[in-house]
């Protein structure tokens, strides 16, 4: 009597029993290199869900024609070796970091298919931050999350998804929420986010659910192909070896124990409108690296007696101390000098004091840090008291108040006092006290040209009204010092005591 054969999918059923036909997706390699002597076998245990999950994914990639476009990110765990099976572009990454690596890959190859395949320890424990944030950014990737409620590869330790009461080598009396907390429901957790477009939990518990899983896997990849957004499929999966069950019992355990704790559901299936606001302008590389606009280079205008200057500028935060230093450095640069500007930088904004160091030199600058300045610009008393002693003998202090404190004697240096804040207030903006100080500094040291300072200000200050106040402030600072010289309040017209 002839043998009757019926073809059911890949299995050829004969009256004598089953015959394995070894037909498989083109997306799998023809031979697996993982085991040298068993090239038709995976390394997964009999009844393991990874084999089924791999098959569903490979068939979907093949059917959707995505093999040449797909990059598979393999995790750490039993599926660390996924790249031995999938004949696609493969990237193997660190434990838990697949969604971050997939982010980098997808952003580099936006029109390709990037899949992160992760287990429960990988995704729900060590990589919790990475999956949550990749999902929240709406990365246009697909994540297949294989949840078998246990650490398989390392030999059966507790997973974040281990069921309450489930024994593992690290929960030997069964998971006790009082000590280990409750199982983590990743699909539900991710469904609280705005950006994901598709989140479903499926189970490899029986043929009917496997067919549902098949549809979910396809749908997730179709969503990525369409560029719609983040897609996530959690796959409840048997681990017979670690669970200590045979494959049939293990599938039953998925149905009877896991599904009640991890209900199967489509948690998210919607098109999400992502606003594309404030698109940045485009520039050429030459424009970008060359600065915002070409700097106009002035002829060096510093006077014949210019010498290298180390200038320390200090005051309260908010007095424009750092900006004054930058204005000075930029002006020096435009006049062809070597310059450096080094700020103090602190952890908080309020009530802080700020200072910066500016070097102006004809030569290459060594230390940008000035411990002994030639010039101190002190915008408040605190700064004056703190730094006055550092000024080199014969140097200059420009103090932003009308008089020195009476108890302070500074015989070694030349001190110029100017009520910068009061002058600035009269000009209509307390903010320009630093520019008043700049005027005083220029008039006193003649280190740089006021015209170049104005050029810099014109390039930086876009508001014409503010620019006009700056101009007046610069003039007022210079005039004040000039007047003091005229009345003999300052002993030397300019420059340094030699």
């Amino acid at each position, binding site marked *: 009597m002839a043998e009757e054969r019926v073809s059911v999918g890949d299995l050829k059923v004969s009256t004598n029993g089953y015959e394995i036909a070894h037909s498989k997706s083109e997306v799998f390699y023809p031979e697996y290199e993982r085991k040298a002597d068993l090239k038709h076998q995976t390394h997964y245990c009999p009844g393991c869900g990874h084999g089924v999950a791999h098959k569903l994914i490979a068939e979907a990639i093949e059917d959707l024609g995505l093999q040449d476009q797909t990059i598979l990110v393999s995790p750490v765990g039993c599926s660390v070796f996924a790249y031995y099976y999938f004949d696609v572009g493969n990237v193997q990454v660190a434990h838990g970091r697949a969604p971050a690596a997939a982010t980098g890959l997808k*952003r580099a190859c936006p029109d390709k298919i990037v899949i992160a395949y992760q287990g429960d320890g990988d995704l729900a424990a060590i990589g919790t*931050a990475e999956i949550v944030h990749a999902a929240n950014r709406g990365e246009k990737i697909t994540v297949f999350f294989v949840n078998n409620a246990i650490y398989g590869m390392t030999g059966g330790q507790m997973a974040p998804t281990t069921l309450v009461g489930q024994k593992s080598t690290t929960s030997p009396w069964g998971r006790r929420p009082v000590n280990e907390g409750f199982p983590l429901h990743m699909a539900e957790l991710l469904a609280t986010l705005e950006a994901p477009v598709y989140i479903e939990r499926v189970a490899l518990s029986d043929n009917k659910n496997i067919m549902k899983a098949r549809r979910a896997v396809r749908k997730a990849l179709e969503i990525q192909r369409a560029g719609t957004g983040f897609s996530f499929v959690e796959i409840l999966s048997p681990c017979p070896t670690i669970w200590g069950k045979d494959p049939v019992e293990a599938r039953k355990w998925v149905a009877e124990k896991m599904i009640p704790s991890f209900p199967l559901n489509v948690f998210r299936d919607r098109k999400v409108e992502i606003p594309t606001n404030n698109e940045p302008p485009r520039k050429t590389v030459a424009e970008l690296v060359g600065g915002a606009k070409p700097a106009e280079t002035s002829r060096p205008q510093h006077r014949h007696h210019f010498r290298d200057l180390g200038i320390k500028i200090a005051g309260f935060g908010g007095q424009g101390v750092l900006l004054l230093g930058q204005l000075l450095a930029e002006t020096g640069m435009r006049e062809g000098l070597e310059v450096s500007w080094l700020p103090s*930088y602190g952890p908080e904004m309020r009530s802080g004091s700020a200072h910066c160091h500016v070097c102006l030199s004809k030569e290459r600058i060594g230390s940008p840090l000035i411990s002994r300045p030639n010039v101190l610009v002190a915008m408040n008393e605190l700064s004056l008291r703190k730094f006055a002693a550092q000024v080199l003998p014969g140097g200059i202090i420009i103090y932003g108040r009308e008089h020195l404190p009476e108890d302070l004697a500074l015989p070694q240096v030349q001190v110029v006092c100017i009520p910068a804040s009061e002058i600035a207030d009269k000009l209509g903006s307390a903010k320009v006290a630093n520019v008043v100080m700049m005027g005083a500094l220029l008039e006193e040291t003649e280190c740089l040209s006021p015209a170049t300072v104005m050029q810099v200000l014109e390039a930086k200050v876009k508001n014409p009204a503010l620019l006009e106040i700056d101009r007046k402030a610069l003039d007022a600072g210079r005039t004040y010092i000039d007047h003091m010289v005229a009345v003999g309040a300052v002993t030397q017209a300019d420059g340094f005591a030699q």
Partner: protein
Amino acid sequence: MRQLCKGNVAVIKGAVLAGCRAYYGYPITPASEIAEAAALYLPEVGGTFVQAESETASINMVYGAASAGVRVMTASSGPGLSLMQEGISYLAGAELPCVIVDVMRGGPGLGNIAPEQSDYFAMVKGGGHGNYRNLVVAPASVQEMAELTILAFELADKYRNPAIVLTDGFVGQMMEPLDLEYREIVAPEKSWAVKGTAETRKNMVTSIFLEPDDLEEHQRRMEAKYVRAQQAETRCEEYRTEDAELLVVGFGIVSRVLRSAVDEARRQGIKVGLFRPITLWPFPAKELTAVASRVEKLLVVELSNGQMVEDVRLTLEGRKPIEFYGRVGGNVPSVEELVAKIEENAAATV
């Protein structure tokens, strides 16, 4: 065209010029301006900036982008670099090129935000697990922040290895003229990359080699490229060393203060010169040996408790006396302080 530019910003200008169009990072003082400049500039030239949820995620995003063969970078400071060490080990193991900037601050732990050079061991000697090296360059000026970032991209691609730009809070925060003209920089073709194409389908990026023989072979190959780098890539600068009797050695911001101190000491008649390693790995051992052979004594200055000094000692193998002076906690020695140290050590050479 010279522009007044912050060191941290210059990093991104150099990176853009080098063809980097991908930045993944997390803010931290005193490195945050690098992320801010990347956020501002990269989209303007069609690039990608993502502020990651952590430095751990940043470095793994870098791993992903590097796998696809693009020029990619991140930046942080000490605490962030500690978190990135896992990823750096994987990048080195998978032979992925990328650039990582460490704007060093005070440590250990949260330490403070003032400059230190105490990540030398972590960056130059490794820090992550396993046998690998980082290529490490050490800028000392704003101009070098741009130029050495470009060099770091070139070295990273040439050796398929992470390259570190190791600098400190002062060099990152300070402004100086940056003279950067547009020039064409072409990254090499990366036939090994995984790009989601038919041509690259067979490619695989991985750091796992389960068979001991395979892993040994992989590491031997890595070692061979490190030897090639040691032979070809050392860079350094010498200043007034011709007739020097005392050689001071320092990198980064310290080399700037030392340069001023050398000038000042020379004015006092002390024959002192400066040796500045520009590449910290490979360490310019051959060059240092040549200079050191002409001097009586060396003085190594660092913002640490003595880290690079170990490489100086390894290089000279006891042939010359080597003194060390370090400041820590975020204190940077003044010119006067280093002149005094030079005087002290010069007196001891005679």
